[in-house]
């Protein structure tokens, strides 16, 4: 009984911290519609900042607390809203999510950079060592503080939302922002306030929990996953229910922690699952959420580019990739190939996101987890049969379907949450399991870190050598890329795009959206499984730490930054992660990579199409019209390759020249093209347009003369002419 009360009180303290973190999350989500994935990272950053002030610069605790929690954190929230989040209005759910993930990565990278994780940072609880006795339980002052603070937050928020003018406006914004505006509320100011409060609460939770956890970037950032289990019990809406959720979570956690360690049987297995309790609660909560209403598409601010890839173009792309791979394989040393081999597995994982996010508009944050499962399957199937890849695809596909099932009937955000939860569950628990036996079959997932992933045998020959496996990876990548192109061009691909554009419309046309989502999710999981198998083969030996949630986030980010509608994005992601250029050249800057990805992602609110579709493709498209230039380029590359093989030039020169060619080719070709055929644009403009007036700006570009035509047609000569270009989006 004594223990029961003891554990209960410590559970209450845990619950209090979850509650503080989760209410901040719910507050920003309901008032602004942005689910802040970086909530935990903000708490982490605040905890480190506080530590630096308190123990690094020896400021008195009250000063450090005031500066950190009441000045810096709310200020950061307000700036974040003003600079980034405000521009997210009218973008897709995926863009919103990815931007907050990029903030997470940016903060995480920055914190690792500023505060080296290898250094020990002893932290002290508040009122170190002082205790108080309540109904026979010894509670530290720190715990009492945490409980009181949570209570104060609950009362404070209640008063703010129900007793103040701005609070009432905030609640009005939750129901209907445009209506609230009509009644004099100012959504921009309200959004800024709720971000300020939200980040403040994240910081508060971070500072309070840091002394009891280790001061570690990773575990504090992942606090988000635990906190949002509570938020989901509150259905991301209700603050009181969020508190109840936090209570369930905290008590479950601490009772489990208290009692499981005393079990005498299977204790080691249960113990591995303790860190996953919030995640398990999250899954159960998801099952009880009511079905979401199908919503139509809301107006998107930026028009999405969804060009249909042609078979011809895709085959050329694959030919170029394989040719390039052969060139690289024969030019670089084996030590470099060890690293380079990893490109293809990672690129295939990137590819797996194209049907899912790019076409279907569904997000998954656990593709690397599927990749790890793929690796394990290939390793356990054993031998060198290529069929192992098929098994990897089938098993990960099935697991993927199972994971997605509870979340698919809900809105997009829940799929992101449950996949993230699954990734963390696997990281923290399943991949760390010791040997176990089910139905008489012994499982040993990673064989204590020495799991060997075989490379396949093809045509009676093993793909063992560095060059051979590097080229094999490229071939698998190309095969997968062609599958992706095939999906995009198929009826199924059309349906996916249609579902992304309007779920309500496809449903009323007779499409079962749940099954469609399930199929695309499984398919994408299966592709990631194959990617993992290829990746595992590149590493040869893997252990349970091989994947982590963060590397998965980075792949998603890279794909979105490059553009989820292009196969080239996957190549980019593979290269970026597989060839750690920055890291090799400047070892001290290895966090810069994460920070860079983070900051690049933040720009997405402006340009959700990704840089390949937006900048690179339009530049290179001109090459198609100048076949001679292509031939000349190929000849040059072949020449350089010959020189390299003959050891006339070294790798640096080789790479330098190729990069130089890549940079000058598009502008040069544009120049040649414009010399040869005088600008077709000018020609079109000179030619009188023979389309009905209503379609100007729709089927033909809108020209200044059109204003005049329209004036004449409508007999509006007296009306002041519109500035040219106004209304270029069409005569709606």
């Amino acid at each position, binding site marked *: 009984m004594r223990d029961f009360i003891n554990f209960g009180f410590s559970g209450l303290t845990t619950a209090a911290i979850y509650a503080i973190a989760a209410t901040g999350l719910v507050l920003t989500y309901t008032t602004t519609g942005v689910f802040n994935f970086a909530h935990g990272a903000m708490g982490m950053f605040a905890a480190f900042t506080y530590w630096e002030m308190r123990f690094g610069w020896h400021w008195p605790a009250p000063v450090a607390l005031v500066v950190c929690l009441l000045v810096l954190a709310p200020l950061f929230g307000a700036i974040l809203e003003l600079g980034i989040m405000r521009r997210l209005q009218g973008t897709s759910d995926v863009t919103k999510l990815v931007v907050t993930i990029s903030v997470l990565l940016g903060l995480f990278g920055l914190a690792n950079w500023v505060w080296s994780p290898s250094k020990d940072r002893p932290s002290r609880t508040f009122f170190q060592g002082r205790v108080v006795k309540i109904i026979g339980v010894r509670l530290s002052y720190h715990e009492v503080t945490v409980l009181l603070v949570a209570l104060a937050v609950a009362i404070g928020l209640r008063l703010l939302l129900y007793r103040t003018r701005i609070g009432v406006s905030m609640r009005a914004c939750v129901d209907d922002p445009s209506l609230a505006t009509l009644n004099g509320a100012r959504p921009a100011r309200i959004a800024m306030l709720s971000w300020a409060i939200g980040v403040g609460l994240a910081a508060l939770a971070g500072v309070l929990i840091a002394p009891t956890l280790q001061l570690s970037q990773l575990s504090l950032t992942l606090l988000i996953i635990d906190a949002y289990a509570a938020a989901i019990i509150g259905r991301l809406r209700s603050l009181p229910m969020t508190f109840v959720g936090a209570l369930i979570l905290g008590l479950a956690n601490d009772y489990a922690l208290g009692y499981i360690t005393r079990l005498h049987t299977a204790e080691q297995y249960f113990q591995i699952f303790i860190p996953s309790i919030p995640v398990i609660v999250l899954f159960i909560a998801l099952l009880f959420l009511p079905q979401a209403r199908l919503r139509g598409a809301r107006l998107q601010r930026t028009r999405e580019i969804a060009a249909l890839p042609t078979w011809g173009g895709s085959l050329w792309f694959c030919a170029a990739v394989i040719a390039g791979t052969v060139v690289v394989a024969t030019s670089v040393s084996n030590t470099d190939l060890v690293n380079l081999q990893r490109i293809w597995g990672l690129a295939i994982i990137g590819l797996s996101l194209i049907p899912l996010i790019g076409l279907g508009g569904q997000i998954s944050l656990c593709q690397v987890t599927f990749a790890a499962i793929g690796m394990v399957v290939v390793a356990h199937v054993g031998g060198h049969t290529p069929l192992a890849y098929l098994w990897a695809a089938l098993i990960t596909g099935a697991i993927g379907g199972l994971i997605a099932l509870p979340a698919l009937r809900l809105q997009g955000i829940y799929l992101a949450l449950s996949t993230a939860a699954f990734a963390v569950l696997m990281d923290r628990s399943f991949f760390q399991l010791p040997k176990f036996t089910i139905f008489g079959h012994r499982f040993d997932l990673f064989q204590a870190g020495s799991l060997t992933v075989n490379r396949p045998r093809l045509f009676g020959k093993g793909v063992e050598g560095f060059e051979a496996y590097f080229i094999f990876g490229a071939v698998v990548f190309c095969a997968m890329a062609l599958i992706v192109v095939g999906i995009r061009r198929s009826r199924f691909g059309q349906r996916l795009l249609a579902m992304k554009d309007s779920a309500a419309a*496809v*449903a009323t046309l007779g499409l079962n959206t749940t099954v469609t989502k399930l199929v695309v999710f499984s398919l994408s999981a299966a592709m990631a499984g194959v990617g993992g198998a290829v990746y595992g083969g590149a590493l040869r030996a893997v252990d349970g730490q091989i994947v982590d949630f963060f590397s998965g986030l980075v792949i998603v980010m890279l794909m979105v930054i490059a553009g989820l509608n292009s196969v080239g994005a996957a190549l980019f992601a593979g290269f970026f992660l597989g060839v750690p250029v920055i890291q090799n050249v400047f070892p001290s800057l290895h966090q810069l990579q994460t920070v860079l990805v983070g900051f690049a992602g933040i720009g997405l609110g402006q340009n959700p199409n990704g840089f390949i579709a937006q900048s690179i493709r339009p530049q290179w498209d001109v090459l198609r019209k100048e076949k001679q230039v292509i031939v000349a380029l190929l000849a040059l590359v072949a020449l350089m390759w010959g020189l390299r093989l003959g050891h006339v030039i070294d790798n640096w020169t080789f790479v330098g020249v190729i990069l130089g060619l890549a940079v000058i080719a598009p502008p040069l070709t544009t120049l040649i093209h414009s010399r040869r055929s005088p600008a077709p644009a000018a020609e079109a403009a000179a030619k009188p347009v023979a389309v009905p007036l209503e379609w100007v700006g729709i089927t033909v570009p809108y020209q200044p003369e059109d204003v005049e035509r329209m004036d004449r047609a409508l007999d509006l000569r007296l009306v002041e002419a519109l500035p040219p270009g106004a209304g270029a989006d*069409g005569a709606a």
Partner: protein
Amino acid sequence: MALLEVRNITVTFGGVVAVNDVSFDAEGGRITGLIGPNGAGKTTLFNVITGLQRAVRGQVLLDGAEISNLAPYQRARRGMARTFQRLELFGTLTVRENVEVAASIARRWVREPDAPGLVAERLIERVGLTAVADVRADALPTGQGRLVELARSLATQPRLLLLDEPASGQSTTETEHFADVLRDLSAGGMAVVLVEHDMTLVMNVCEYIHVLDFGSTLAAGNPEQVRADPAVLAAYLGSEWQTGAIA
């Protein structure tokens, strides 16, 4: 027995009653008008019929069978299609692809499925969009967007067609062509329910009109009866207006 029977439907949002105990029928071969001022609950009623919105009370019957608990896609497969007041086009697809998607989805249950490409070609011509068939749907003006939605819903070969303000955003000539298409469809045996503010169109094509106001039934009958109904006149034009002022 009518093809569609709506029985005592009530929908509330929070404390607001959006639809209050409304019943009406839609028969095959008839164009039924559903009119009323903004906020009368017309679109909500469509959402209930198609399964996008749950009713608090009441039933929806198709062919005499209760379908209130079916998902939207299951209802569509029983021969129901709709258009949306706030356009729900597949914006990243072309006009042709919009119709093709619908036709390919419907292939699984329609009796004589044609190749989606053929269906699209035929319907795009029928609604008069051939010139913009390969334009992305989100580049079209609203009036044409509505025609895309019409063609798209026809691609599933529905027996019941629910049209939510299909003529708004269309020019007079477009509306006239549209009225012909509707009469054609109805003559072919389809049950059409038309929500519309364009009273000329409604009075022209509808054989039966159901008037809603603040979620409740205000009047129902053929166009002449509705036109003469004092309650309708009051709701639409203010009570001082004389009979016959509409249309």
